């Protein structure tokens, strides 16, 4: 795949989380949707301002759990009833109470693994390159003491000039263009 070119978005840098959250709320009000906040620690208000409520991790986790449950139960049924039918203490071959615990363990195993790997995949990981690292001070600031808001160029409302004007109304330290 050839490298993408052109502008990725406009990145505003703030000194405090409140300024970041305020700007994010205003951007959403103004109609921007494709945007992201970058902060050195979790700022839950920023997640609220982005309306970032739902993720698909619970669904992935549930699906994994159900697959684990069904697989383990059916596998044990197949083993005990058809593959290796053994008389154990005179019980029926299909003695389901004995199958519950391994099925339960597999449910936990599968849902845990799918939650962890599902989360990593839905996060877009592993990702070796991200355009925002092209911005000055991002590499250092986003992991220490600066708060960033990026309005992305894929947003239909995005315009290099108007969006820059929009962002400059806030007390941002800098508003820079970020290339792909």
């Amino acid at each position, binding site marked *: 795949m050839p490298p993408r070119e052109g502008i990725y978005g406009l990145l505003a840098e703030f000194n405090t989380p*409140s300024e970041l959250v305020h700007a994010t709320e205003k951007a959403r*009000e103004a109609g921007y949707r494709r945007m992201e906040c970058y902060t050195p620690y979790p700022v839950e*208000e920023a997640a609220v301002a982005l309306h970032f*409520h739902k993720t698909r991790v*619970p669904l992935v986790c*549930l699906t994994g759990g159900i697959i684990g449950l069904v697989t383990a139960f059916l596998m044990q049924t197949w083993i005990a009833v058809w593959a290796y039918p053994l008389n154990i203490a005179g*019980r029926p071959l299909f003695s389901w*109470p004995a199958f519950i*615990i391994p099925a339960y363990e597999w449910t936990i195993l599968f849902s845990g693994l799918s939650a962890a790997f599902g989360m990593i995949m839905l996060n877009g990981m592993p990702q070796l390159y991200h355009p925002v690292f092209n911005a000055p001070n991002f590499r250092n600031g986003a992991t220490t003491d600066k708060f960033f808001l990026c309005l992305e160029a894929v947003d239909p409302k995005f315009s290099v000039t108007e969006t820059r004007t929009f962002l400059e109304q806030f007390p941002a330290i800098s508003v820079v263009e970020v290339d792909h």
Partner: protein
Amino acid sequence: MAHGQEQHGHDAHAHYGPRTLPASLATPEIVSVWRTRLLIIAAAATLVSVLFAFTHEGRNHLLRAYLMGFMTCFGFAGGGLVVLMLQHVTGGKWGLLLRRPLEAMSRTMWLVALMFVPIAIFMKHLYQWAAYPNPGAVAEALQHHMVTLEQAMTINDKHAMLNPTSVIVQTIIIFGTLLTFTYFLNKWSLQCDADPLRGTQQSFDRWRTKFENLCGIGIFIYVVLLTVGSIDWIKSLDVTWYSSIYGLQFLVGQGYAVLALGVLTVILLSKFEPLKTLLRMTEQHDLGKLMLAFVMLNIYLCFAEFLIIWSGNIPDEIPWYLNRIYGGWWTICTLDFVFHWVVPFCLLLSRDLKRNKRKMVWLCSWMLLARCIDMFWLIEPNFADAAANLHIRGNIGILAYITVPVAVLAVWGAYYLTELKARPIMNLNDPHLEEMLEPEHAH
């Protein structure tokens, strides 16, 4: 901005400063209305129950159903006390939110102790060990085929623990100890609020340490006493059977019921001040998670007991389950499983449901109903006429299991609400209060 600090949903204009503490922390007046309703229900259920006394086996069923009502109420009073002690030890905002409802539950302890009196009087109609209290009576009962050989030998064997005097003494010790803990925890709670140094770190630390020191040992003592109580009152209905996990099952069942009732109380009260301000979605969500944990732990213990006995498949133990599965009991057994575990578990997995007040009210009520079904399943099959033989035809008195517990629980509920109203709904002298006034986060 001045208004609209609602807890329902995040509007873009919500500001991020702390909210102000409501001027009055008194329990809302609506509680009196609920209490009147409960008393009406209690009266109606009692009237219907009286009719059952004239049916076949009706009086026996009244007594057994009363035992079920007693044990369920004890679950709230004792369970309330132990969860109260638990939240003093663990701390946390969920605990502060539930503390006053839990204290109110624990203060009903003397009423529950009083409820034991009829059981003590009519003991010999419930328990074989009370009907045949000495080896002579046991031998005679054996001769007249009133008990099996195994039952006769077990009654004699367990005589030291299971005889009328011993059980009454044990019951007095249980309630005496629990009432002592209840007294101190409730007294200190008021003193803590009235502390002249309230609001300072020094005061917080002093009271936290004081509560912790009593509650740590209190939880241990409670578990031991509950094990003794559940054996004396419920398990010994079947004198031959035993299970080492029995007390623990009741403990978890009580936690299950107490959380359901506590959450139900705070959510219903959150329509009104002060809980309208103080119950945040965050804490409701946390309580929902805790309920899910108890739902899981409950099925874990129940299934563990079943699996071990099913694997062993020995004549000493397995009839207890056979009596509760065959002869129509399969329906109750399935209902118990579905009500107790399948429905609450599947629903509580959902994050949205845990954050929805209306749905949580329904779920909590459902869980309380599940506890009653479970108690019925535990108690009734112990008796010879009902073991592996659930029938309504010619046995209409069994319906007393619906009306009597409703009457007993309604009386208990009315008293619980009285005690709830006696104090402000929230402790003031707690560092978590300030945190609960902070704005919500999206978790």
